[in-house]
């Protein structure tokens, strides 16, 4: 009897679960039929694929969505978790013939290849006024075949040096402005029992640190010769040896548990005062704010040590797939109009922690890091590209490999490091 009762309980529980699942899936389906019905009416419809899923990012995108809806559009949301997954999902849907009308993408060679295959169409609204609002580097990177193929949404800066103010004060250190100063500061911090540099040992984080050293030691023109023109003379120059020597000198200032650590864990170490510096892109800012700290007070942000101010940028953008869905073209146009709006761009960038892609907006209301970055970006000479922006992914990946190999093998000399880098560029065909 008892057993039977128990079984009955199990069955009813199962039934409840199934019912719940059915209800939930029904909800989802209802949601989509509503929009499909509405699509049948003559409203512009736009499916937007994006990875703006974290809380501040979602809040930022919500404004775009509200405006699209307010102007009579139908918004179909397709969120994907994470940039890499998001890009892969967009590409596979495009290849599979079911492209999302609008999709978030990073400007760069991958997008250019999609455009070369006519899978991505030029931005539906091309007005000279709109494109002149963007910094020169962004304009250049988002063009293919004479057309803009993406709407830049915001600009992310990669060469930030975040530091824990209290930790530096405890050892009575000033914020270093050159790499030798930084190494000296790191030595004192280590002697005081602190971890000088919070680094996650993943190849992209090691590359961020390397690029900071490259820019700091070599300067802006050298950086361009390396990553924009791939000048063989730059790779075998004395300056390159200095870069590798300085990079190698940083190894002792990273703790032993670094390999494999995620960047957010490294930021946590900085926030909690275990580590003094982190060299990371502006996406580390959100975590500082979430911990209840104020930028410029408890955690400082300056550009990584360099003699010439420069901002290494990556661009978050939305691109437009070739689509034959009814009313999708109008939807794409509507989306473009909204996304290019200065108000939207400012709001979005502020929430995400980046700077707006448009340079004709006021710095008011931005945190001190972003405000500083917007100042720096006014000088076209200070705008530098992340390698992913203009190099093919295969090549920038091979460069990452070379940097990571050098960083993780203390046996390698500076000239062997420069050889690895040269080799990586040469063997990519």
């Amino acid at each position, binding site marked *: 009897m008892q057993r039977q009762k128990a079984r009955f309980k199990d069955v009813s529980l199962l039934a409840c679960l199934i019912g719940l699942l059915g209800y939930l899936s029904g909800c989802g389906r209802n949601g989509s039929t509503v929009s499909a019905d509405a699509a049948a009416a003559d409203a512009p419809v736009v499916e937007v694929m994006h990875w703006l899923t974290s809380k501040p990012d979602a809040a930022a995108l919500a404004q775009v969505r509200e405006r699209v809806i307010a102007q009579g559009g139908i918004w179909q949301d397709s969120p994907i978790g994470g940039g890499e997954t998001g890009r892969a999902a967009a590409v596979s849907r495009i290849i599979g013939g079911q492209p999302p009308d609008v999709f978030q993408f990073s400007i760069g060679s991958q997008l250019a290849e999609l455009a070369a295959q006519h899978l991505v169409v030029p931005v539906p609204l091309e007005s000279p006024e709109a494109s002149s609002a963007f910094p020169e580097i962004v304009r250049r990177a988002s063009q293919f075949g004479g057309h803009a193929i993406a709407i830049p949404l915001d600009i992310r800066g990669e060469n930030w040096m975040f530091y824990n103010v209290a930790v530096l004060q405890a050892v009575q250190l000033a914020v270093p402005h050159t790499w030798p100063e930084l190494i000296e500061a790191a030595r004192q911090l280590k002697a005081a029992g602190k971890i000088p540099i919070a680094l996650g040992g993943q190849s992209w984080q090691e590359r961020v640190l390397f690029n900071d050293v490259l820019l700091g030691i070599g300067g802006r023109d050298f950086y361009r010769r390396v990553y924009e023109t791939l000048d063989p003379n730059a790779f075998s120059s004395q300056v390159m040896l200095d870069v590798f020597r300085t990079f190698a000198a940083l190894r002792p200032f990273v703790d032993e*548990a*670094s*390999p*494999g650590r995620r960047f957010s864990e490294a930021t946590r170490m900085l926030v909690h005062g275990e580590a003094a510096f982190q060299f990371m892109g502006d996406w580390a800012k959100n975590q500082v704010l979430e911990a209840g700290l104020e930028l410029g007070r408890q955690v400082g942000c300056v550009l990584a040590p360099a003699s010439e101010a420069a901002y290494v940028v990556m661009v978050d953008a939305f691109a437009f797939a070739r689509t034959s869905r009814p009313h999708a073209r109008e939807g794409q146009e509507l989306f473009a109009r909204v996304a290019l709006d200065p108000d939207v761009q400012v709001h979005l960038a502020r929430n995400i922690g980046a700077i707006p892609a448009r340079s004709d907006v006021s710095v008011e209301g931005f945190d001190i890091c972003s405000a500083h970055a917007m100042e720096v970006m006014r000088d076209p000479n200070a705008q530098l590209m992340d390698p992913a922006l203009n190099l093919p*992914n*295969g090549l920038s*990946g091979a460069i990452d490999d070379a940097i*990571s190999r050098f960083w*993780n093998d203390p046996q390698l000399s500076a000239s062997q490091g420069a050889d690895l880098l040269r080799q990586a560029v040469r063997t990519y065909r």
Partner: protein
Amino acid sequence: MTLNGQRIRGGVTAGLLASPMVCVLICFYAFDIWTFFMSLTPSRLLPTYEFVGLSQYHRLFNSPRWWEALWNLGLYSLSLISGCIMLGYALAILIDRGARKRAKYAPIFMLPLALSFVVTGIVWLWLLNPRLGIQHAVRELGWSTFVFDWLVRSDRAIFTVAIAGIWQQTGLCMALFLAGLRKIDPNVWRTIRLDAIPTWTCYARIVTPVLRPTFFTAFVLLFAMAIRTFDLVATLTGGGPGFSSDLPARFIMDLVARQELGMGAAGACVLLCIVVAVVAPYVYIEFRRQRQT
């Protein structure tokens, strides 16, 4: 007529029965063939169908990361297979000897098998992290010079992947061996007791040779698993420090992710060849032996 009708019906039934096999052929082998074609093209982000011969293989074999990954695969599969088989066999013997009393322990060793590799990877990531896990715990207990930092040592990181793999797969081996042991004729044990043969001699000389097919199954399963290990290494070490625990599957995924479709396909084909080269002779010998006996 009836005969004819039967034959026709037989044809339909045969067709139905064969259909899964046709599906298997299309679903599995078509992709293999397509991958092989891709490896002969210059495809990067999107597939192209231009023929460039073996140049992708040439690029692959010129890549130091590929050779490092292959070497790591050798170390990893060797330690994984031997570790799992030895531990699994030992556990199976212990449980089998305890018979009913300890049978309830068997599921405990099977539990890790229910976890995904990603979860296993993360659990061991925490355990092996020198600042959080075992090393930290032992130091807190008072042994302040204790060092267990394999996860972050270039020369040991690959073995941490093997440890996590062994932890997860031992249960499977144990179950295989346990099933094998249960099938051994009880008369064998009676005879041994009568003849006063030491137990370990019995295991070494009689039981182990009898379990030969079980060893074979365990080897093939584990080897196939070792070759396609991706998620475990991706979550546990991320191939690092540097590329010291990189495995071919991870490298291939990296290649595809960075728009090197052709080169990634070449890597996949080489892996397939390795599996065939290792497993095929073994399968051939085993089957011939089974047919002879």
